[in-house]
């Protein structure tokens, strides 16, 4: 026993020595991001060119904001929240640092997307976000088993009863609102009107609850439900649908009739970032067209890099064109910045839907 403890101590000291020495010898970039946005190949290439280690933590929008809120903006050097969630989080919790636009190589970024993101992530005259990866959420459908699903509200039809899944989160509320003929984004700043829309959606989703097999929360859980054919139609991201399409040609992503919901994930710098220079280096590195294509291949989504799609595989391009005929691209509803306080209303609605029997 004593020997064991001695050995344990030795290992522990060695581990501490190793970690401290590695901190001393190389710069590290602590990146908080989504799965697939920092593939190993890109990290290795970055290390080779700059000597900077990249430490990746995977999360989602809520996770990123919560983590940064808990530490008041410390613990990470670069984060990737969606563009619509930045200004309100900055207003409420002061967790980001303004982006120094002079350090960004803007020629590498699609201009329209860059400008839109700058406008949407501005707070008090400063810009807090640079666009990186964009995509949509809509419907992932097994076309053989559920051929008639064209829009969010079709998920409530009797023929797919018990074989449907969606998230109990804000995109579901907004998608259903559009499918029911409302315009929630136009009502973003009118609390009374927005609440009326929420009430309508709430009634619909409570009605629809019997149809739902389970509310999914992680992408992998949803993939398993669709693979096992326990679920034939679901609300999900486009990349997830295309990934499933590679395994089973019957399953694919479709843009709903009322319009897919478009999101852009950005780069934002936490207030207490310790490796700001490395962060800018990483941003400029991954926006190079050939690197951006590698990220597209890993994440399944397109990036905001100009000419990035030239290097993308023909298969993914084909899947994209099949899911998005030109008219559907124009119909994408891009998320405007969320006003503060709106998520509280949505939260209560979601709670009530969850609690309804």
């Amino acid at each position, binding site marked *: 026993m004593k020997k064991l403890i001695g050995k344990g101590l030795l290992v522990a000291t060695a581990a501490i020595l190793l970690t401290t020495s590695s901190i001393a010898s190389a710069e590290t970039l602590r990146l908080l991001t989504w799965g697939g946005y920092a593939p190993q190949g890109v990290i290795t290439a970055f290390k080779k060119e700059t000597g900077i280690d990249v430490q990746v933590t995977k999360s989602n929008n809520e996770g990123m904001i919560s983590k940064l809120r808990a530490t008041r903006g410390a613990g990470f050097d670069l984060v990737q929240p969606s563009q619509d969630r930045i200004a309100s989080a900055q*207003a409420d919790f002061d967790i980001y640092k303004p982006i120094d636009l002079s350090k960004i190589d803007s020629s590498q970024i699609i201009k329209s997307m860059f400008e839109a993101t700058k406008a949407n992530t501005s707070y008090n005259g400063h810009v807090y976000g640079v666009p990186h990866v964009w995509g949509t959420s809509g419907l992932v459908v097994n076309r053989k088993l559920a051929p008639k699903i064209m829009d969010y509200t079709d998920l409530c039809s009797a023929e797919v009863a018990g074989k449907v899944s969606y998230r109990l989160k804000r995109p579901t509320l907004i998608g259903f609102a559009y499918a029911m003929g409302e315009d929630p984004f136009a009502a973003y700043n009118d609390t009374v009107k927005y609440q009326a829309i929420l009430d309508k959606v709430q009634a619909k989703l409570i009605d629809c609850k019997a149809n739902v097999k389970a509310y999914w929360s992680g992408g992998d859980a949803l993939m398993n439900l669709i693979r096992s054919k326990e679920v034939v139609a679901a609300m999900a991201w486009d990349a997830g649908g295309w990934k499933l399409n590679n395994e089973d040609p019957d399953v694919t992503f479709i843009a709903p009739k009322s319009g897919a919901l478009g999101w852009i994930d950005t780069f934002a710098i936490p207030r207490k970032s310790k490796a700001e220079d490395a962060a800018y280096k990483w941003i400029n590195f991954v926006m190079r067209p050939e690197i951006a294509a590698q990220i597209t291949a890993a994440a399944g989504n397109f990036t905001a890099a100009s000419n990035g799609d030239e290097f993308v595989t023909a298969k993914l391009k084909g899947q994209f064109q099949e899911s998005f005929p030109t008219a559907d691209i124009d119909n994408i509803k891009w998320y405007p910045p969320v006003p503060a306080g709106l998520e*509280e209303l949505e939260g209560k609605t979601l709670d009530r839907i969850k609690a309804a029997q």
Partner: protein
Amino acid sequence: MQPDKNKLALFLLLTPLLVWLLLLIVIPHLDMMLISLQERVAAREYRTSFSNYIEFFSEPLYINTFIRTAVMSILATLLTLLIAFPVSYYIAKMMKGQSKQILFLLCLIPFWVSELVRTYGWMILLRESGVISSLLQSLSLVNGPIEMLYNDVAIMVGLIYGSMLFMIVPLVTTLDSLDDSLIEAGYDLGGSHWNVLREVIIPHATPGITSGCIVVFMLSLGNYLTPVLLGGKDSLWFTEQIYTQFITRFNWEQGAALGMLLLLLSSLIVWLGLKLSGQSFRKVMS
């Protein structure tokens, strides 16, 4: 000189415990309490108020969720006791020597893997395309696939399975300390099985039963993984509400208030349970 030295030794021995309690239990809870008393007025602007607590009592959703969680936890505790008692009795009284140790070890083995893995195990068994469903189909006992996941029974199964060990360990220890001759004397004096159980075995095992029940109840009430993964769309567990408030709503104030209420109300339930069963905390702990 001597008493001073003793005091110093006691103080030194207690220090790690006190530091532990202060840093990891007392300070976080005080901080939680302070956060729970704040109300968001506007961005970066807060004022002190009880609004988060009032919210709990005025929004039926929170109360109903809490009652549901408490009732299901109590039910899970009773069922665990019902299943664990015969098992513990068998291990403590019927088995001797090595076979006793092996049986005890068998109860322990599932706990060598993490709770998450155990819960996923249940999901593989119970799901529509899972083991039990396909077994029943291949035996042609049922026609189509059957879904056993995502309901209250699945939650209950998961909770009982997950807390079984914490009931068996205290029960086996207390039953072990019961002298066999007392049981024999009970029978010699003409007692039936029921009499012996009620008059001899249960009174002796009461401290074990009570401490087991408290642990299992608290574990079930505070469980997050099992209800969320096995309960699906209807899980509605109180800890899930707290998690949602903290993580997905960024509403720490409400989450902290719900957390404090969970602490207070669950302590109240345990206290009531002790009172109703005529136990005192001191007896259970001794």
